[in-house]
C-alpha cells in the first residue's frame, strides 16, 4: 500500500519552540523521505520540507503538532518525525 496516509501527533518539548535551528533539523529529517508530509499546528498547515512554512506555524514550546504523511513510505516518515519532535532541542 504505497499510497496510504498516516497521521501522528507529537508534542514539542515545553522549552523548545519550533524556531530556526530545531525547524532546520525537522526539515532535514522530513526530506529523507519521499512521502508528502505536512505539519499542522495553531490552525495552520505547513509542508514539512519547507523551513519557511514550518517557521510560519509559530509553534511555541509544548505545542502539539499533527504530522500527516502520504505516498511512498508514509507510515515510516510519520513515525520517524513524531519520534523526533519531542527530542528537538
Amino acid at each position, binding site marked *: 500500500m504505497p499510497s496510504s496516509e498516516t497521521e501522528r501527533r507529537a508534542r514539542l518539548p515545553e522549552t523548545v519552540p519550533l524556531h*530556526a535551528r530545531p525547524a*532546520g533539523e525537522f526539515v532535514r529529517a522530513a526530506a*529523507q523521505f519521499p512521502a508528502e508530509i505536512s505539519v499542522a499546528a495553531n490552525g495552520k498547515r505547513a509542508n514539512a520540507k*519547507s*523551513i*519557511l*512554512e514550518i*517557521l*510560519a506555524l*509559530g509553534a511555541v514550546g509544548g505545542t502539539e503538532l499533527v504530522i500527516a504523511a502520504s505516498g511512498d513510505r508514509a507510515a515510516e516518515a510519520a513515525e520517524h518525525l513524531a519520534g523526533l519532535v519531542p527530542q528537538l532541542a
Partner: protein
Amino acid sequence: MDGESRNGFVGLVLVSHSAAIAEGLAELVAQVAGPSVRIVAAGGGPDGTFGTDGGRVLNALQEIAGPAGAVVLMDLGSSVLSVRAAFGELPKETIAQLRIADAPLVEGAIAAGVTASTGGSVDEVLAAAQEARTVAKL
C-alpha cells in the same frame, strides 16, 4: 570533510552591501543548515565601505563553484549588478554550475541552506530560495 562537502552539497554565495550582513547571515545559515553546506560571504565595498566589490564577488563565485553547484543570493541594486558583471567574467562551465536566486536575502538564504543540507539539487535549492518570495511569515 571539506572536499566531501564541496562535492556533495550545493553551496551558497551571499552578496550584500554590508560585509556584516553577509557574514552574519552566513553564520546564521550555518546554525540552521549545519556544517555540511559551504557558504561564502561577499559583502561590502572594496575598502570596508558599504557597497559591493565586483572582484570579491567574482572570487566568491570561483571559490564556491563545483560539481554540486551553488546558488547566489544578493540584497539589491548594485549587488545584482556585481553578480551579473562577475558572471560575465566566468567560463561557461562555471556558469552552468551556478544559479542566481531572485529572492529576499535572509529568508531565501535560510531556505536555500536548509534545502542544500538535505542534499537537494542546485535547482531544488534555487526553488527553495525563491519560495521565500511567497511564503507568509505570519
